């Protein structure tokens, strides 16, 4: 154990405030580390690997659908593929990438903390995530194959009669592990942000990314225990003869849907909020302006999170047993704070000096793509429309607009913070080529699916009727999927090409927040020294004393004689 001191201002501390770290090396270092940066990096690498695995499943699915009666895979294999594609992407990529990967590395540094509040718990989160991922994927190596009841595991399809076999149980077991992993990360994030901020870093000076991660942490604590409990009950139904989700023994199958979506909709915001945060860090930096509407952004984040807990049954409109007006109104209300965010991002760029770096392009791509997904979400939130589009490709297109936006946002985050984490920049030319493949691929991939849905093509089918229109639209979607696959390859090539080639320095983007004040990569326990914190842009204030940030709502020349004194 090391006692960590708060580093004093601007005196490079050679005697105290940091200590040289002589620990184990190699594999033992990886296994025993409690450093949030190493854990976060493990998370990032593992989750990007999951993105590649899930992406491979997706490419197989798209090739199967390129012709109406293809037999690239059997019908049973197709069920396994779409189940595991969704599961890998939602449970093993998007969430862990955001809250275990980038947030784990960046949040403590952004608030001037030496580590997460519970470093050993943080390490445990990673091990539970890794073993959970292995458990879930191990289903492919069992006799009956992997889970095949869809990523939502609806009862009664998921009971022991309809889907017997180890694959389904491994799916449940894997989710128990990753579920606890997420809960521990939620605990860690909230505790870190509430208790380890540097002096002067008040709540309303925290970077928006940190704010969003705080709210994500709280949402995790609200949502994940529900899923974990639901899974335990599902396991009991399968093996111990309880009848919680089966009519025969007096249970209620639709209860599973309530439980699942009570986790599931907050989960989509657990996935989305971190990426909102990343983009909100990136757009101001590359527009060379402070963020437009700082407090409005925080208010929007909070209201999105609060409302997201009251909308779960918009996934269950067609069950006929949910309160349509309540869930419809609540879902439509979420569009308001989401709109505030979109306007604030545009307002930040408005009349800024925009630098179209790869990170910025990816961030703009995120905003556009997310907007498309959000707007079609509003269609789906209206029951009369949803009755026609439920379980069609329209829904598939809706959530792929949203989640592909998250991939764009995640890439923005990697290009932006990668240099801080590794000390080296990525190649911008490859980055921009990657962006265009990813962005165009995403639209070519999803747009035909909207049309397919409106023309009535159901989701989760391996073969479909010989209809020339359906065939053409499916072909376009497959082309889009290929473009997206190529973009991932370009990213891998870029990492290889720029490996340790372009040293980044401490602050390559002239960015605003504390993580850019320390070295790249940051030392053990993160800081040798800290600047005075007087606004939400301490690094900017330090580097540009002549253009220091003003208090919220204050403008130069508007009766504020002491711009260096900032109050909230």
């Amino acid at each position, binding site marked *: 154990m*090391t006692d960590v*001191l708060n580093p*004093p201002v601007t005196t490079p501390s050679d005697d105290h405030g940091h200590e040289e770290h002589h620990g184990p090396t190699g594999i033992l270092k990886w296994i025993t580390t409690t450093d949030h940066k190493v854990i976060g990096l493990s998370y990032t690498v593992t989750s990007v690997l999951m993105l590649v695995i899930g992406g491979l499943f997706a490419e197989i699915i798209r090739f199967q659908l390129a012709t109406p009666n293809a037999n690239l895979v059997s019908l049973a294999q197709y069920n396994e593929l779409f189940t595991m594609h969704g599961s890998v992407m939602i449970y093993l990529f998007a969430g862990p990438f955001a809250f275990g990967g980038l947030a784990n590395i960046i949040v403590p540094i952004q608030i001037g903390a030496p580590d997460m509040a519970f470093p*050993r718990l943080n390490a445990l989160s990673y091990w539970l995530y890794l073993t959970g991922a292995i458990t879930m994927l191990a289903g492919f190596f069992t006799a009956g194959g992997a889970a095949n009841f869809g990523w939502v595991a609806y009862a009664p399809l998921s009971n022991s009669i309809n889907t017997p076999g180890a694959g389904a149980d491994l799916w449940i077991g894997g989710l128990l592990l990753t579920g606890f992993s997420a809960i521990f990360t939620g605990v860690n994030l909230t505790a870190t942000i509430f208790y380890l901020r540097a002096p002067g870093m008040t709540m309303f*000076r925290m970077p928006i990314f940190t704010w969003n991660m705080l709210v994500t942490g709280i949402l995790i604590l609200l949502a994940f225990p*529900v899923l974990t409990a639901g899974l335990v009950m599902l396991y009991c139904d399968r093996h111990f003869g309880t009848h919680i989700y089966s009519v025969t023994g007096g249970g209620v199958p639709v209860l599973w849907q309530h439980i699942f979506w009570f986790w599931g909709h907050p989960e989509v915001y657990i996935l989305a909020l971190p990426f909102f945060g990343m983009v909100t860090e990136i757009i101001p930096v590359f527009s060379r302006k402070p963020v437009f509407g700082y407090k409005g952004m925080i208010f929007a984040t*909070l209201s999105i999170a609060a409302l997201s807990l009251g909308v779960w049954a918009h996934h269950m409109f067609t069950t006929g047993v949910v*309160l349509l007006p*309540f869930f419809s109104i609540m879902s439509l209300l979420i569009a308001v704070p989401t709109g505030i965010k979109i306007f604030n991002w545009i307002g930040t760029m408005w009349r800024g000096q925009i630098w179209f770096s790869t990170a910025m392009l990816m961030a703009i791509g995120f905003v556009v793509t997310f907007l498309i997904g959000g707007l079609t979400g509003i269609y789906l939130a209206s029951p009369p429309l949803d009755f026609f589009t439920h379980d069609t490709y329209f829904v598939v297109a809706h959530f792929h607009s949203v989640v592909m936006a998250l991939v764009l946002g995640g890439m923005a985050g990697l290009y932006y913070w990668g240099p801080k984490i590794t000390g080296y920049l990525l190649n911008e030319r490859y980055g921009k080529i990657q962006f265009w493949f990813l962005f165009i691929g995403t639209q070519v991939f999803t747009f035909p699916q909207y049309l397919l849905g409106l023309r009535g093509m159901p989701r989760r089918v391996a073969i479909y009727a010989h209809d020339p229109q359906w065939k053409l639209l499916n072909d376009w979607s497959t082309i889009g999927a290929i473009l997206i696959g190529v973009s991932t390859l370009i990213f891998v090539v870029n990492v290889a090409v720029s490996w340790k080639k372009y040293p980044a320095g401490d602050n390559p983007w002239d960015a605003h927040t504390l993580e850019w004040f320390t070295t790249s990569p940051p030392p053990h326990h993160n800081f040798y020294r800290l600047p005075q914190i007087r606004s939400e842009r301490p690094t900017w204030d330090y580097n540009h004393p002549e253009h220091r940030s003003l208090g919220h709502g204050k403008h130069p020349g508007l009766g504020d004689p002491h711009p260096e004194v900032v109050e909230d």
Partner: protein
Amino acid sequence: MKAEAKLMLGLGLFFGLMCAVYWNWSLENAGGVMMFAGMLLGFLPGGYFYWWSRRMKARPEDDPYATQAGGAGVIGSFPGTSIWPFTMGMGAFLVVLALVFGIWFLIPGLGLVGWAVLGGTSEGRRGGKV
């Protein structure tokens, strides 16, 4: 501490209201219970923070004029490295495999978890390694 307290209490209040509206309108129990639990998750930590915020003076991180030097001093103990999270993770892995492949996996699984609990706790007392 005040801002933190207000945040959590506010969330609790919102979930409480939503729970009341929803439960009375839909008479559907699963959602009602889950929202009630959401309300508690706002009020319990929120109440705790509020209680503390009234009993302590503003921490350096709550003070907009705090200086770095003013906040200097020991802020906590952080382990340099530890083997116990890994041990516990592998134990939990085996416990979950027991759900699928047979109950005997519980023996090494619970063994590792127990070992990690003991090891981790005593490491904390001893001070552990840097």
